[in-house]
């Protein structure tokens, strides 16, 4: 048995912000229905690389796979009002939870906002996740997480001092909102169980992102300090950074947080003469001479593979790690042991590694257990078996391109 078996979720959602919420529920056994249409397939399918072998195809998207394993996929062409609107309401009435990430106002225009859906399902839980929230002067402004991460302050905090901000790969802030959105739904499910009441949840990805920066927001308010990027430096540790290793573009990190760690690091390095210099004798002097310190440490690490540095230092009780590449994370021994990846066969992609949750429920182990669905793969099954449409009704809706 999985932890969330029996929960029914419907997604009027695309890309990452909505569907990744649904994925976490699907991983734990909820029945999650991803709604798209042939007129407007999920943007990940339509125009967002990577595609298998760099050949575009609606069922060849790696990012769609990442966010949609264990779901049912149906099509519903919402442009075909009023039949499509009525069908959407029927689907919502079947569900416990609706997740949507259209730009604010869209669900209302389609006649399926929370007020409308509550009429057919009074205890419905609905999550609207958007860039800037459902209200306020900028609510209507749509955007992608890769840019919202800048408005919310994250890229200002990333880079070398005095240089350009650096990107945080992908829609960083979307996945912050995913954690908060899923948590909000789980709280609302508990509340419904106890009180019988549904809930409409409005999360602004912007506001969820700012939760992660609370101390430096307070620092500005109280002290007037504007936190900024400072490469890998940390006021409380020295050395603290990424250092070159043997091979092409191989790196390790290490960090020293106390005098006893510094002594142990010197021991591991074989107590080279420079390490006994007064310049490096205390945290304060190491901070003062940190550029030189970093060069010296880098000369030492250059003689080893990243894994060797990590193992030597960890054995001495000093924090250190390999800078894993996007290839390495598939073979990293710790992630492999968990195991973090589940290999499943996909008819058009072939072998695909699906991502397990970052938290493991020890008595109710999560999936992934099924590959992501092809576009419209479960139309028949969902509309007839789960929703209970008759053969004739179903055929008519297909012919009218409502189910399309």
């Amino acid at each position: 048995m999985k932890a969330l078996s029996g929960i029914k979720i419907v997604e009027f959602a695309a890309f990452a912000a909505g569907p990744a919420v649904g994925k976490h529920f699907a991983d734990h056994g909820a029945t999650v229905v991803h709604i798209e249409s042939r007129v407007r397939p999920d943007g990940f399918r339509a125009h967002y690389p990577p595609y298998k072998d760099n050949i575009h195809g609606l069922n060849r998207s790696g990012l769609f796979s990442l966010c949609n394993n264990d779901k049912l996929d149906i099509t519903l062409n919402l442009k075909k009002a009023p039949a499509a609107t009525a069908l959407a309401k029927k689907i919502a009435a079947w569900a416990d939870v609706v997740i949507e990430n259209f730009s604010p106002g869209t669900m209302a225009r389609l006649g399926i906002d929370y007020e409308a859906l509550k009429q057919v399902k009074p205890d419905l839980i609905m999550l609207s996740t958007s860039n800037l929230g459902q209200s306020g002067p900028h609510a209507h402004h749509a955007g992608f997480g890769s840019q919202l991460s800048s408005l919310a302050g994250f890229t200002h905090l990333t880079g070398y001092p005095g240089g350009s901000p650096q990107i945080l790969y992908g829609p960083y802030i979307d996945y912050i909102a995913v954690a908060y959105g899923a948590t909000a739904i789980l709280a609302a499910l508990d509340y419904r169980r106890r009180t019988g009441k549904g809930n409409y949840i409005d999360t602004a990805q912007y506001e969820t992102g700012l939760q992660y920066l609370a101390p430096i927001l307070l620092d500005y308010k109280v002290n007037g300090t504007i936190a900024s990027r400072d490469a890998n430096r940390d006021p409380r540790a020295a050395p603290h950074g990424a250092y070159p290793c043997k091979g092409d573009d191989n790196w390790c990190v290490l960090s020293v947080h106390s005098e006893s760690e510094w002594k142990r690091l010197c021991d591991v390095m074989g107590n080279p003469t420079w390490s006994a210099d007064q310049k490096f004798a205390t945290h304060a002097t190491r901070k003062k001479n940190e550029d030189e310190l970093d060069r010296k440490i880098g000369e030492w690490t250059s003689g080893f593979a990243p894994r060797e540095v990590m193992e030597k230092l960890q054995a001495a009780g000093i924090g250190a790690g390999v800078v894993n590449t996007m290839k390495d994370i598939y073979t990293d021994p710790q992630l492999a042991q968990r195991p973090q990846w589940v290999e499943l066969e996909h008819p058009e992609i072939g072998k695909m590694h699906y991502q397990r949750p970052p938290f493991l429920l020890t008595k109710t182990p999560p999936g992934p257990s099924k590959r992501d669905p092809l576009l419209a793969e479960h139309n028949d099954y969902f509309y007839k078996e789960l929703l209970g449409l008759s053969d004739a009704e179903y055929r008519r809706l297909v012919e009218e391109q409502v189910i399309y």
Partner: protein
Amino acid sequence: MSSTDRNAGLLSPYRVLDLTDELGFLCGKILGDLGADVIKIEPPGGDLARRLGPFYKNQPDPEKSLYWFGFNNNKRGITLNLESANGRELFSRLVAKADFIIETFTPGYLDTLGLGYDALSRINPRVILTSITPFGQTGPYCKFKASDIEIMALSGCMSLTGDPGRPPLRVTFPQSYVWTGSYAAMGALMAHHHREQTGEGQQVDVSAQACLLWAFSHAHVFWDLNRHVEKRAGSFMTGRSITGAKMRVFWPCKDGYLNFIIYGGEAGRRTNQALVQWMDSKGMAPEFLKQKDWKTFDIAQVTQEEIDRMEEPIVQFFAGITKAEFFKEVVKREMLGYPVASVKEIFADPQHEARGFWQKIEHPELKTSIDYPGGFAKFSDGACQIWRRAPLIGEHNEEIYSEMGISKEEVTQLKKEGIV
């Protein structure tokens, strides 16, 4: 709007015992934001993380850490020495009435105290133990030492950040702890759902390394599908075009930087068109940009040469405008893009004011109040907000121990013995 009665929160019936360090602070705070009764348990003398800056008025003091304020509000605080037998006895009594326990000890440590999951579940079979560590409870790294930078490195995040040829970067303000804390909250509530259906409690094993796989998560799929390794590309975006073209993300402007990307898709085409119109209104749009047929512009097929040619006049245009001007125009013209904001500009954004996001929290001990980022979501039925500021060291010892039926005198005695 803001209230101090957490009964308005969705999770008000539940109690959480929080034994975390900074790796797990946010988990308990999130449950607290939702109304749960969270008790932060610190060793006598206070948590070491109280030494983390920044500090109120820049005065390093365990009662003035803004790091503590930011991530431990919505918690009451007690001190308790788990390494003494009496301390463990008191803790066991708290466990008997708790719904959740959150902890960040090195795997195995609680077992050495006789407080591992098996022991805790004997006291309270329904309890959810959420164990948060850098790498998880088992495996070759499970006892490795890791602060933010090691987690960011081993999860692959750093390989994607920084200029090619220079050291990979982390985000300067530590991110891995908050990612981990928030995903841990999701895991804890999933286990809670199962417990409410079946009566069965369990341990939730959270790995920070695994949480951070989500942070930059699109990149690894390029390897899985096509054996292509995405790498750090400085301030450029890669992976949007199958020709390998990279797009500029950060553009210097009059007073800082802007985030603007030449995108494809419907929204991208609308943005590109709106930008050219805006440039043209200032006489800065070259003929070839004005003539461009955006309907057929395909980002997936675009070459580097074409991108470079488009970017040149845009560089000149953006150099002459301010962040505030850019923000105003992108909202008005419905373009994609945002300024690279610092905390200062975030406070100036009228969107937060309009949504009542900032919450003024009283700090009577400092004789002041401070504006905090408020709730993470708006619920139609139920509140999500800050109910109380972070606790002082041992602030609620008497309150909570008296709730357990322990007299004032006994608390005084326990204090003498160094247990609380």
